[in-house]
């Protein structure tokens, strides 16, 4: 009997889907990036929460994000590798013109071209546990 090394499993936890955030993951599965909006004072918030921190209203809906983003900060991960990703793995924190930030992995860009302030596009793609989630990608003309 050969001593085969065990297949490594991803350490990425399953999503914690609650009544407060399910709308966001449902929309993502349909290919839409949405932002929670307070229907009382129109304040946008992300990550989702049950109440508006500005006016304390529990009433909210969700608006579609345009998909534009600007790189606010980033890291390129080398270690430890997780089987759900390819390494080195770039991960970015991006400003959306709507006024919120999103963190996501960055694909399609050579890492030496990453610079804070660069424009990016958000696309919804399949991730490690099968969820459809945002990914940061270069805008047309910036692809490498």
């Amino acid at each position, binding site marked *: 009997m050969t001593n085969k090394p065990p297949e490594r499993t991803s*350490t*990425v*936890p*399953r*999503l*914690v889907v*609650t009544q*407060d*955030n399910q709308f966001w993951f449902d929309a993502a599965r349909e290919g839409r990036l949405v932002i929670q909006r307070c229907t009382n004072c129109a304040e946008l918030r*992300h*990550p989702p929460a049950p109440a508006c*921190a500005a006016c304390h209203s529990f009433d909210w809906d969700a608006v579609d994000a345009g998909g534009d983003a600007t790189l*606010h*900060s*980033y*890291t*390129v*991960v*080398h*270690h*430890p590798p*997780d089987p*759900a*990703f390819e390494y*080195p*793995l770039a*991960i970015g*924190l991006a400003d959306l013109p709507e006024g*919120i*930030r999103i*963190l*996501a*992995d960055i694909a399609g860009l050579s*890492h030496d071209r990453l610079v*804070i302030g660069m424009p990016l596009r958000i696309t919804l793609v399949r*991730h*490690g*546990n099968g*969820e459809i*989630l945002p*990914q940061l990608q270069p805008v047309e003309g910036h692809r490498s």
Partner: protein
Amino acid sequence: MTTAPLSAAAAIAGIGATEFSKNSGRSEWRLACESVLAALDDAGIEPREVDGVSLFTMENNPEIAVARALGIPQLSFFSRVPHGGGGACAPVQQAAMAIATGAANVVVVYRAFNERSGTRFGAGPPPFAYRPSTDQEYRNWINPYGLLTPAQQEAILARRYMHLSGATSADFGRVSVLSRAHAANNPKAWFHGKPITLEDHQRSRLIADPLRLLDCCQETDGGQALVIVSTERARDLKHPPAVIRAAAQGIGPQQISMSSFSRPDIDALPEVRLCADQLWRQSGLGPADMNAAVVYDAFTPLVLMQLEEYGFCGRGEAKDFLADGICEVTGALPLNTHGGQLGEGYLHGVNGIAEGVRLVRGTSTNQPQHAVEHVLVTGGSPVPTSGLVLGIDR
């Protein structure tokens, strides 16, 4: 001061630890018991006198287990503080409050784990991350994208901080070189006799750019315990009291564990500033009154950011502050004289509190030549945090 009833009400009278190692070969429960007995022995207090215990929520050895194993007959006070190393100083605050209010007379704080040979935080999300709860919900917004470990999460802050302050990887490296110089002279440290150069730091492999291997703390097995009693009682014990001049906790606006990414300035640590404001107000002291500091150093960049938030220098100026040699043993603010968690070992900051006590007693292996009257000790960031000012009795 009449406005700060907590200030000087209690003191740390005993410290005790196991060895810090790659593989203790013993249970975490035993490590907890060994460190508690060592700290009680250091204080000269019998285990049966312990009537309070305050711990991290992440501590795997509950007070009830240690009390049973050590035959501690009764506990009238027991509490837990969340947020891991952020809360490092908070159980000491809880202990001081319990003593000041009469809820307990002898309070023990301990942190014991086989973090190196067992579950390593640097390897990925810890076991509790897989419990679906509001407490872990924040992981939805970072983990599925590969941001899985503390080093990776802090790298996002570090990159932004570099962009705004002009700090470089070499500036982070100076923290590491300093800690390893101190560890080299500390027989208890992982890196005893093993100093590094800035070149070593710059050549070490990238873990999560901009963080290199030598920006990251040294995970360890081990246990560290502290014994807190009233300052009055401490005066009659074996060692000079390390008086708790001030103790504070802090959570800032829109805080999320390790990922407060929605804040306007992600390089600012308002929860640290909140601790600083409380510590200075309670103690009637300020940054210029600190004769040494133990600043939580899971990763080097957060040391720079904390020095700024505690007011030792302005925002973005920590790189120049450190380059001056002020944090060496011969400088005005010796920093992490035990070698820090980069050099002595990552014991969730509780070993740093013990070093604060040694500095006040005058027994650090890197004891400064100048008089040490007050020492700042900080908990971890960027999570809900805590801090202490320890001082001589006067």
